[in-house]
């Protein structure tokens, strides 16, 4: 019984899941800035369950280029639901001067594609997979 409990605890420790971002405390893994913006932060989690936090979506995107293995989870905060992390596959992205982002790429995520286009008036609204076409 005791052994089972131990195994359970060990397994729980390795669980791959995102952690909460402590705004105003945590540092961006890529640019070392303190993370404060609840509508632009991002996070990925590796297969070993290690989370990496970012102050801006462009920071995560640029950091991923140096990464050999694709992380298991990639999450972004969105402007329409700030403070909540959304899977990148469910998010829609825009590059618009109307919403400046922390690292100057003006890249913002939305959970709702129509809202993204209506709010920023910016076409195209694109998905994560095609990000490299828009962001250097």
């Amino acid at each position, binding site marked *: 019984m005791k052994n089972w409990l131990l195994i359970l605890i060990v397994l729980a420790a390795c669980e791959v899941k995102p952690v909460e971002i402590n*705004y*105003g*405390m*945590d*540092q961006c893994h890529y*640019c*070392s*800035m*303190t993370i*404060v*913006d*609840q*509508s632009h932060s991002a996070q990925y989690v590796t297969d070993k369950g290690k989370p990496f936090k970012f102050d801006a979506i462009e920071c995560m995107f640029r950091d991923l280029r140096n990464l050999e293995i694709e992380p298991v989870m990639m999450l972004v905060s969105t*402007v329409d639901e*700030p*403070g909540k992390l959304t899977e990148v596959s469910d998010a829609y992205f825009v590059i618009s001067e*109307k*919403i*400046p982002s922390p690292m*100057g790429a003006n890249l913002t995520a939305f959970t709702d594609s129509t809202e993204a286009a209506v*709010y920023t008036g910016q076409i195209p609204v694109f998905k994560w997979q095609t990000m490299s076409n828009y962001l250097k």
Partner: protein
Amino acid sequence: MSRFLGILTCLMISASVFGQIEVCSDCQFKTVPSAIESASPHDTVLVHKGIYPIHNMVITKPITLRGLNRPVLDGEDKGYIVKILSDSVSFTGFDIRRVGISHTEDYAAIYSFRADYLEISDNHLEDVFFGIRLEKSSNVVVKDNIVKGRFSREFDSGNGIHLWHCKNARVEGNDLSGLRDGIYFEFVDDSYVIANRSHHNTRYGLHYMFSNDDDYLDNYFYNNGAGVAVMFSKNIKMINNRFSHNWGTSSYGLLLKEIYDAEIKMNLFEKNTVAISVDGSSRIYYRNNDFIQNGWAIRVTGGCYVNQFTSNNFISNSFDVSYNSKLNDNLFQGNFWSSYSGYDIDRDGWGDIPYRPVKLFSYVVNRTPETIVLLRSFFIDIINFSERVTPVFTPDNLMDDQPSMKKIKW
């Protein structure tokens, strides 16, 4: 005498050409926008004491707005308060309160767009989201204002003085607290930040991004999330500032990230977790700085080349210098190190044996931060000593071969 008369006539002409309009509860004009509406360019609008609910007031002509006995402009949390869209506006002596909060709009108490030659001085801003936000405006002066945010930790804090795409700005004598960044410069060139106090801000006291040829002098940064961040910028001069009490695991007095050709002179760094955190920054001159009682005085990560550290005082820091690579291309010379244990037999004022500022233990701590609990243990003293005698992990040319015996004065 004739000169005096000349000045007098000039004054009289200006008094007659440029009118003055007063605003108060029993004046002809009872609201500020109505007075601005009927003012001619270059008139002065004098606002008497009182409380004026105002939001989204747009100024589209050159005008001088002056508050007498601190009239209050209350934004009632509705959005912007004053928007300046004209050159040559002077805005002085107001109390401004309650700016609206939004995730998608950066509401500010005073906002300008494409407006040059502005003067914004002696205003007290309270409960702001963004305080003073100037965009694409050049030759602006922001002086002697007090900006207070809402002292909240999270999303509802903006920046105190936020400049975006500006040139020749002068930010002087302001007091900034309870904000995200006290002062934020993004794409701002040829500007000065002088004698400001920036404290109790969530993120940075002062923040530069993509800004070149700027100077900041005589400022005081304390109790911020982190003191100052200078990122992706060139030719920044940092002189005679004071960085203190920036404590926390990810906190530092000064962060340098991807910057080139900077000068850091005569600054005081006291009681910070990391005094200066340097990442990928080259050709930086550190001279006559005092590093007193910091966790780390200088923490170098990433490639940093051709940096010079001369005539600085390193006093009572847990770690003087920490490195994460074996390569050293930086010069340390003529500094005073309080933990230097050498001698000066020839009495020329310089220590006879070199000082090695990088301790082996700092590598261990870089790898595994938790080991910091062993800091004062005997075991750590032994490994630091053995590394000092025969350097294996630390760059063997990383040393000050002319350490000063006395604290350096300038």
